């Protein structure tokens, strides 16, 4: 009996490990395939444009909304804090730096993961369970090339664009709250916003967002591509895709922040 339990446990651990290694291997293979097809011509720009509209332009409203209110809340909150030691003029600085360095890229990535990454999984998952992906194979068309590459291109290129806009909208939101609600001097606010900001703050944010875009689209496609189990499987895959996307974004965010901001640069400035 005891032996059975012990063996069972060992088997469970072993199987779990094997599954994990397999999943990582599969993912690696998937990323490798994607990179291979990314580098092969011709790229299907038509499909990529469609995806760019989907990931980029169509995500803009929700990114706008998120960034706007984040900027507004940031202004309110930091104002409350700074007022306590008379540094209200720093609100703009905080909003600007927070948006460009951290919140712009990360929030945009999260929003796009929820909106476009999950859509990618659902689309590809549906195609998988209705055998459309198989159909592509039988028509001698590689689904990575036809389905994944355009999405990865769109994700990687559109995230920075969305992030720039989120930065802007967030700063705008903070500005509106600070000037209209908290009575800040508009000129001073803008001056303070950019006084301590450096190119590095924004561009490293954009670089981050590019990586995030790649992660979102690759994870979204991967989860969809290997969907199993019919309509229900599509649902599960979509959930998994969002969860995995979030986790990888946070992980990558930490690593990138450590890499980009650690040695001097903008990091030491504030």
């Amino acid at each position: 009996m005891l032996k059975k339990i012990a063996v069972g446990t060992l088997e469970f651990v072993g199987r779990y490990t094997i599954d994990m290694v397999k999943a990582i291997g599969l993912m690696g293979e998937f990323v490798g395939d994607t990179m291979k097809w990314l580098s092969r011509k011709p790229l299907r720009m038509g499909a990529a444009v469609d995806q760019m509209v989907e990931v980029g332009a169509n995500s803009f409203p929700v990114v706008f909304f998120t960034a706007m209110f984040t900027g507004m809340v940031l202004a309110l909150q930091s104002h409350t804090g700074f007022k306590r030691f008379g540094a209200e003029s720093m609100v703009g600085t905080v909003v600007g730096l927070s948006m460009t360095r951290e919140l712009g890229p990360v929030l945009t990535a999260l929003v796009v993961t929820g909106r476009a990454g999950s859509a990618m999984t659902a689309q590809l998952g549906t195609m998988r369970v209705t055998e459309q992906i198989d159909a592509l194979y039988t028509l001698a068309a590689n689904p990575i090339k036809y389905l994944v590459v355009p999405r990865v291109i769109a994700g990687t290129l559109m995230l920075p664009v969305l992030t720039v806009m989120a930065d802007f909208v967030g700063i705008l939101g903070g500005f509106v709250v600070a000037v209209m609600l908290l009575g800040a001097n508009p000129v001073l606010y803008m001056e303070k916003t950019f006084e301590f900001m450096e190119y590095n703050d924004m561009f490293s944010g954009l670089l981050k967002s590019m990586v995030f875009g790649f992660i979102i689209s690759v994870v979204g496609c991967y989860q969809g591509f290997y969907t199993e189990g019919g309509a229900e499987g599509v649902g599960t895959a979509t959930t998994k895709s969002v969860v995995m996307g979030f986790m990888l974004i946070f992980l990558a965010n930490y690593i990138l922040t450590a890499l980009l901001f650690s040695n001097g640069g903008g990091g030491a400035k504030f």
Partner: protein
Amino acid sequence: MIFCENLYKAFGDNHVLQGVDLHIKRGESMVIIGGSGTGKSVLIKHIIGLLSPDAGRVTVDGQVVGDLHEDELNEMRKKFGMLFQGAALFDSLTVGGNVGFALKEHTDLAQSKIDERVKECLEMVGMKDVERLMPAELSGGMKKRVGLARAIAMNPQIILFDEPTTGLDPVMADVINDLIIKTTRALKVTSVTITHDMVSANRIADRIAMLYQGKIVAIGTPDEVMFNQTNPAVREFVEIGRIIRQTEAVQGRHIGAQ
């Protein structure tokens, strides 16, 4: 020209194929019958390389499918046309886009030529003026026929039909049967058809193979499969077919007379 040798395939504990041996000759019309869930669809997916066997191998025109590189596999697949059981039309493309997909991807034909060919193929499956529709706007039977049109658009040498007449009315089923017979006989196309429809099987089959419990348990001409079987499972399965055949024989309208 297509050899399936000792194929084994399992999904987890579900051992679907358990030593399938099947030889399909060039230009013949092979019909595969078998109970639901016995692995017919799995078998033909092995032929086109969508699934790879756990053991055994599939050879097409002397090439082992499992050994092919991606590009070679694609070249091989260009010889094939396949109709999926669920049609598997691309949701994001119009009917015209679906049918003309391979033409657009693999040929240098002008769009007008492609449109022409698409129209032709759709007419062959009894459809007209549906090019601009999206798959979501079609009925199940219509999808099936669009899938069929897509499978034959490239004039393939081998066509794999997974239940082409399922979900069609009898008239339309006859049209499809005729289409399969015509393409196979006239164009010397090799076809592999999965069907539960004994009428259809009677009409189109040069040979019939029955898959049962992971193995081919009966193979031969329709007469051989329907009358000379001792296996009770086979006898039971082909009961209807036998009746149809006997009736046809009485009426002198059997296939051979045509």
